[in-house]
């Protein structure tokens, strides 16, 4: 039954429905022109008789399919993307252009080293920037993402402990409850057991309680600084001293390094290892979920255990050490094939050179300024997670929503109707119904004001009992709320022609 608001196509103006490529592509043809093969075969009996059954588009169809799809995404280029702890800032397009220079993009990782001196020189230069900005003596470049960098740091810690003959006894890692889930997962992946690091009432690590938990069984503490509540760990030096005195190491999660880049150097605070998410602090694009890049800086105590490969300067030229030998004899192993995320390295260095030491410091300052501005403005209606100023992100609880019948999730979905991407929800776990807002330094004051005005308006509406505005949201997105329970109960992870559910949904 159609009504006058329904369209015959299913499209609604600029909002265009997109079938799956398997439903509109051709199984007969290809959208790429190539010369005709001669038919020679030296494959033996492992040659498949038929092509894989996958459809193709002609180029115009492909363009339309993916452009239409793209229009169903929210993106930082469209508006504020205040995901706390994720750091969605502007991605300068110069960085894209630089990464696509053929001299970086069209180079094979195993070419003779004398043919890739520019690529190695770039990595070496980036190493210098990262070490200088963190006051750390060494950096492992190969980790492919933040969590991979965590793994690198914890593997180095494990190797250092084993080198001291304490592998069998130092098995505990202390992690605050507010930590990213990757921290405990990483520690577990390294064979450690995970124990809770107590917190103070003002959202920081409880130094006295932590010291009590330290022993000769503790391998390391894993602490994010600034932490996931957006607060600087003011006892960080004392924490480092205490863990070192107990014979353990300090892994610092560098996810929030963007709040202090150029202002504070983690190496000056006594940490032993920290990964740097190039896609956060140095603005390589998030790309809808990767690729990331997670170079990991290491202290003098951990540097000997860094993984292969490593780029080193020898006289006027650069070399790659690919095996655990010589200076790298104690390397804990290898994390990836080849040398890491070169494409991200180029983007990050381009970003760093553009900002320089002075600009990076301004990045930290403006991100903290913007977050505090948002914090103060929203505190008019919303409850802060912890009192006082914050760093680069402002944390709110859901206490102010009590008795409104509106939850954090509903509030977030109503933000979508206002034209914003929601903030991080229900993280960190230490605050009820957490809302973590990170505006970043690339938002203008006008953008922040529009955002705050809108959230304050929503907050007042929630308190005034306009429940449907929230529970029915989003109303103006390409889809209304999606049934996640159904997706998990009977997972459909690919298209199949005879899938009755897929057909029923059409």
């Amino acid at each position, binding site marked *: 039954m159609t009504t006058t608001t329904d369209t015959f196509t299913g499209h609604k103006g600029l909002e265009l429905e997109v079938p799956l490529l398997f439903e509109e592509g051709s199984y007969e043809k290809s959208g790429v022109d190539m010369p005709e093969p001669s038919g020679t075969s030296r494959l033996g009996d492992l040659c498949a008789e038929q092509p894989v059954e996958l459809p193709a588009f002609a180029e115009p169809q492909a363009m339309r399919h993916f452009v239409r799809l793209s229009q169903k995404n929210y993106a930082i280029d469209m508006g504020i993307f205040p995901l706390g702890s994720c750091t969605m800032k502007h991605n300068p397009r110069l960085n894209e252009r630089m990464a696509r220079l*053929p001299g970086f993009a069209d180079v094979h990782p195993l070419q003779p080293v004398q043919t890739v001196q520019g690529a190695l020189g770039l990595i070496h230069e980036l190493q210098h920037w990262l070490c200088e900005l963190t006051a750390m003596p060494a950096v492992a470049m190969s980790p492919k993402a933040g969590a991979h960098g965590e793994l690198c740091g914890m593997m180095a810690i494990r190797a250092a402990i084993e080198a001291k003959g304490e592998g069998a006894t130092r098995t505990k890692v202390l992690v605050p409850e507010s930590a990213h889930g990757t921290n405990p997962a990483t520690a577990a992946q390294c064979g450690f057991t995970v124990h809770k690091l107590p917190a103070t009432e003002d959202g920081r690590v409880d130094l006295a309680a932590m010291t009590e938990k330290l022993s000769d069984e503790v391998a390391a503490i894993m602490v994010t600084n600034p932490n996931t509540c957006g607060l600087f760990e003011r006892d960080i030096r004392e924490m480092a001293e205490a863990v070192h005195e107990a014979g353990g190491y300090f892994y610092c999660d560098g996810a929030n390094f963007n709040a202090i880049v150029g202002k504070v150097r983690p190496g000056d605070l006594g940490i032993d290892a920290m990964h740097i998410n190039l896609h956060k602090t140095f603005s390589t694009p998030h790309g809808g979920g990767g690729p990331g890049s997670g170079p990991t800086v290491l202290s003098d105590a951990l540097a000997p255990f860094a993984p292969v490969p490593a780029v080193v300067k020898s006289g006027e030229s650069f070399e790659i050490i690919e095996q655990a*030998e010589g200076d790298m004899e104690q390397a804990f192993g290898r994390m990836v094939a080849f040398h890491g995320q070169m494409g991200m390295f180029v983007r990050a260095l381009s970003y760093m050179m553009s900002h320089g030491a002075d600009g990076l410091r301004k990045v930290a300052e403006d991100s903290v300024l913007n977050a505090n501005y948002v914090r103060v403005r929203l505190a008019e209606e919303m409850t802060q997670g912890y009192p006082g100023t914050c760093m680069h992100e402002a944390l709110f609880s859901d206490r102010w929503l009590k008795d409104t019948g509106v939850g954090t999730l509903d509030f977030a979905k109503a933000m979508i109707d206002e034209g914003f991407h929601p903030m991080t929800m229900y993280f960190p776990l230490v605050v009820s119904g957490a809302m973590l807002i990170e505006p970043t330094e690339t938002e203008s004051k006008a953008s922040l004001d529009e955002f705050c005005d809108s959230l304050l308006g929503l907050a007042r509406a929630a308190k005034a009992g306009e429940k449907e505005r929230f529970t029915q949201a989003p109303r103006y997105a390409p889809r209304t709320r999606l049934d996640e329970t159904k997706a998990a109960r009977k997972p459909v992870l690919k298209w199949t022609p005879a899938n009755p559910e897929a057909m029923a949904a059409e």
Partner: protein
Amino acid sequence: MRYLPLTDADRQSMLKTIGVETVDELFSDVPEGALNPALDLPDHMPEMEVERRLTRLSRQNHLGSDGPFFAGAGAYRHHVPATVDHIIQRSEFLTAYTPYQPEIAQGTLQYLFEFQTQVAALTGMEVANASMYDGSTATAEAALMARRITKRNKVVMAGGLHPHYAEVVRTNEELIDDKVLQAPATPGAGAVLDMIDDETSCVIVQSPDVFGFLRDLTEIAKKAHEHGALCVAVVTEAVSFGLLKSPGSQGADIVVAEGQSIGNALNFGGPYLGLFAAREKHIRHMPGRLCGETTDTEGRRGFVLTLSTREQHIRRDKATSNICTNSGLCALAFTVHMSLLGGHGLRKVAQLSHEAAVKTADALASVQGVEVLNDAFFNEFTICLPKNASDVTDVVAAKGIIAGVPGGRLWPGREETENLLIVAATELTTDEDITALKTALEEAL
């Protein structure tokens, strides 16, 4: 500073709203003496200056397009249609986050669903995830997954597994005190079958292997299953899926691959794209993100990230993996390129690459002192030279030819492999390239 929108007047008025005098008051928790360190780094630069400096660095590299090019061993130089790069640079794809708000991320979610469908079809498997960092880390994750499924602690690897992949597996497994065994890296040898026993969690076999040999997985999978172990198939050249029998059809339980060669540039080693596919019954043991189909409140089809109870942000130290990113944009490049190729197009790319490799092998076989070790191969094969292949590669590189990947690069300091040269060809390889390589080798030997 061109990327910072605040004016000084904005900053002053915002500080006033916050109720502090200076921005450094907001940093008052920073320990004494640690604020505002002097940095030995230059100040900001205009766009044109950054461009000038980086361009200069980039010119110090020899490009794939500068001359004949035969390097492979896990990274391949194929043609990527212009459409691919245009699509992945769309703001809505490039500057989006992980699709945690599915109502405004259907673009990303739908292409991930399409990607998973393509990967499942190519590998011959039932399910695939939304991608991993790269082929090597995907291989290590496969070993960890097999460990969870079989509850055993011994990994067996074929000698033909790419040495970097083997090292990554070893690094991850030995960390938790598992046993990792590898057959000797000898071209054409198949010792792995005898190493599978009742303690084995999985056997990891690459085909085409690092020397270019094609491995029939059927026997290996059969033996693995007889012993209650899993068969993990590794593919480092995804284009081979277009022409070879799929690992799934040969009995593999998990298939991992490097997807770079479809849609993605060489990029000096990264970012790349890990493909990960498995049997449906093992879904809940899989690492990484999964995109699944569902409906919205109006009954319309839509997509969400699903089965996230496996993942670190929910399960924390009990998660299947610590991974929290995939290789989203590289997966998009793969999906777009595959959507242009289709099954027929991919087969053609694969066939052209194969034919170029056959021509290359035949040309090199006629060079005095060169022995081609492979009878059957896809687009890569190994030759044995009468002298150190690294030296030869260097000499030939000085003439503008990238001859392949020498054994000394993959197994530094190992005598048995130092005279071997692994040579790859693709649809981009021309007859002139082949003649140039042949001539250069004749001169160098």
